[in-house]
């Protein structure tokens, strides 16, 4: 499955766990072009890039292309930067629901939690690429 931000914004360096909970070890890529604009001379990871990272890692776990249908609550607790917090753990807990998956996730390292996410993702219909 093609992932939009994998190997652009982050790379996966490890994976642990099975069943309900999966932990992905990721590294943020300092050369990501987003830092040209966020912000010029002062790289800060956009909070929404971490929402996308969670979606892509949930896609890996489920093997399905997912859409973020609802976000119950997503908190950005501390600033993430490729220089100061290059190595992060993304902890994902997925529960099958009627319309897809409940996704409960956080992004943290040994020091602190940077972000928490609770929302619903649903599988996308397959699109005809020739359309």
């Amino acid at each position, binding site marked *: 499955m093609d992932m*939009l931000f994998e190997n652009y914004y982050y790379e996966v360096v490890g994976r642990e766990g099975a069943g309900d909970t999966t932990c992905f070890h990721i590294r943020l890529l300092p050369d990501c*072009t*987003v830092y*040209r*604009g*966020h*912000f*010029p001379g002062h790289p800060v990871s*956009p*909070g*929404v*890039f971490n*929402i*996308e990272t969670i*979606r892509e890692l949930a896609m890996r776990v489920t093997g399905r292309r997912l*859409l*973020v*249908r*609802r*976000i*119950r*609550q*997503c*908190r*950005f607790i501390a*600033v993430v930067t490729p220089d100061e917090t290059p190595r992060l753990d993304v902890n994902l807990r997925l529960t099958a629901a009627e319309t897809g998956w409940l996704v409960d996730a956080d992004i943290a390292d040994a020091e602190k939690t940077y972000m928490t996410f609770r*929302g619903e993702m649903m599988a996308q219909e397959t*699109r005809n*690429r020739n359309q």
Partner: protein
Amino acid sequence: METAAIEQLIPQRAPIKMVDALEHVNGDVATTAFTIRPDNIFLEEGQLIEAGLIEHIAQSALVFAGQRIWQAGGKVPLLGLLGEVKGFQLSRRPVVGDVLHTTIAMGPNVGGVTLVRGKTVVDGEVIASTQMKVSF
């Protein structure tokens, strides 16, 4: 209404600048516009992903807040910090060529945190809505 250039109001630049214009301001409510171009970094098979929509809504709030400060003679661009996204709902993803019209309703500022409600419309149809907490 006299408005400042978007680049004057917010620090975001290409490839993550996600507002083209501030269209209307009326009290605590404002509307922005943004056209999805083929080189947008949030595109998956021609569709704008949710992260891109949320970034657009957050930047719309920042543009509105910046415009108010600029009008009052204050210092811009404004550095905003997104603290929370709550109650986001997506009904459909917009696609390349769509023009997003996003209405921002600015709540009171409590201890430096402002509660913002955003709603994005494409061709008259609401495609997404959310609340957020932003620190300006």
